[in-house]
């Protein structure tokens, strides 16, 4: 009996380690940006109003959602965002990330203006059809702001507090579970005056 004990313990340990490994999503990388100020930027908006910068949102809790019309997982989470925006809890600002992909320019390089126009048209058409959960959406055509926010897999969602500090980052679509278990309680906590 004792002879089998050691291999059994080793086997059980191995199984536990492999099991834990299986449960974890290797695509979820802890972001070094949580707890840091949201990187500053100034980008044109979808509606063509004056450029938006995160400093405009100081003093309120807000959600920053990275999306694109070509992103399938974004469509998946979109209805949930629309529903969320209807509850008017906190504003969602969208970052349209690299709307114009390399494939769109196969027929020839587009000028900056043409890219902006195409991105606006396509995004607005999508939002008209699927509903617009965003207070406003900014266009990050070259993905530079995305890099500053550590974006590597759209959709990504950030919660930024009244002081402009990133408090949470979600990579991948927001699911009802994540919304109810994590996002809503966090927003509630950040939004209550101390």
């Amino acid at each position, binding site marked *: 009996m004792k002879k089998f004990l050691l291999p059994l313990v080793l086997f059980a340990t191995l199984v536990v380690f492999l099991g834990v490994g299986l449960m974890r999503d290797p695509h979820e*990388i802890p972001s070094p940006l949580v707890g840091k100020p949201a990187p500053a930027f100034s980008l044109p908006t979808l509606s063509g109003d004056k450029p938006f910068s995160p400093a405009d949102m100081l003093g309120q809790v807000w959600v920053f959602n990275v999306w694109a019309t070509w992103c399938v997982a974004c469509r998946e989470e979109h209805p949930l965002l629309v529903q969320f925006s209807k509850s008017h809890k906190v504003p969602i600002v969208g970052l349209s990330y*690299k709307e114009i992909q390399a494939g769109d320019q196969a027929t020839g390089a587009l000028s900056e203006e043409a890219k902006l126009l195409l991105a606006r048209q396509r995004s607005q058409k999508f939002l008209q059809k699927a509903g617009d959960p965003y207070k406003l959406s900014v266009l990050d055509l070259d993905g530079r702001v995305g*890099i500053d926010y*550590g*974006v590597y897999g759209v959709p990504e969602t950030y919660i930024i507090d009244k002081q402009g500090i990133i408090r949470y980052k979600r990579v991948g679509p927001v699911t009802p579970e994540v919304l109810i278990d994590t996002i809503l309680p966090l927003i509630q906590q950040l939004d209550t005056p101390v």
Partner: protein
Amino acid sequence: MKQFLVVWCLGAVSCLIHAGEAQPMAQDPQVEARLVVIAEELRCLVCQNESLASSHAELAEDLRREVRKLIRDNKTDAEIKTYLVERYGDFVLYKPPLKPITWPLWFGPFLLLGLAVYGLWRYLRLRKQGTSPRLDAQKRAQAEQLLKD
């Protein structure tokens, strides 16, 4: 001698042609060379088992563009890596930095090796002491009984 000269000329010409062809890919060979060295040590975040140098993911392309820009701005390798770590975390580095949270990663294997060596040493010593089974009287009687049956 003449033959040698011809070969030499052909060699020189082919070198020139080659350099001419490579030009469009790398606008500045020096920047490109440094980019490859740095990007080999960085992980592409989309296809995580590829380095930033070899990945074809669009994000990798964008990040290479940023690294190129930083190289042209005369940033040091350490500054460029810090730039990426600030955004994507230690995960972008293929060689994780030494800090308390990565101690198990760096020293764990040596610990396991030490344990294994200790186990082996103990096992060998036990085996050397003799393999004769030590049975007490009761067990011996039991065994004899079994053999008789």
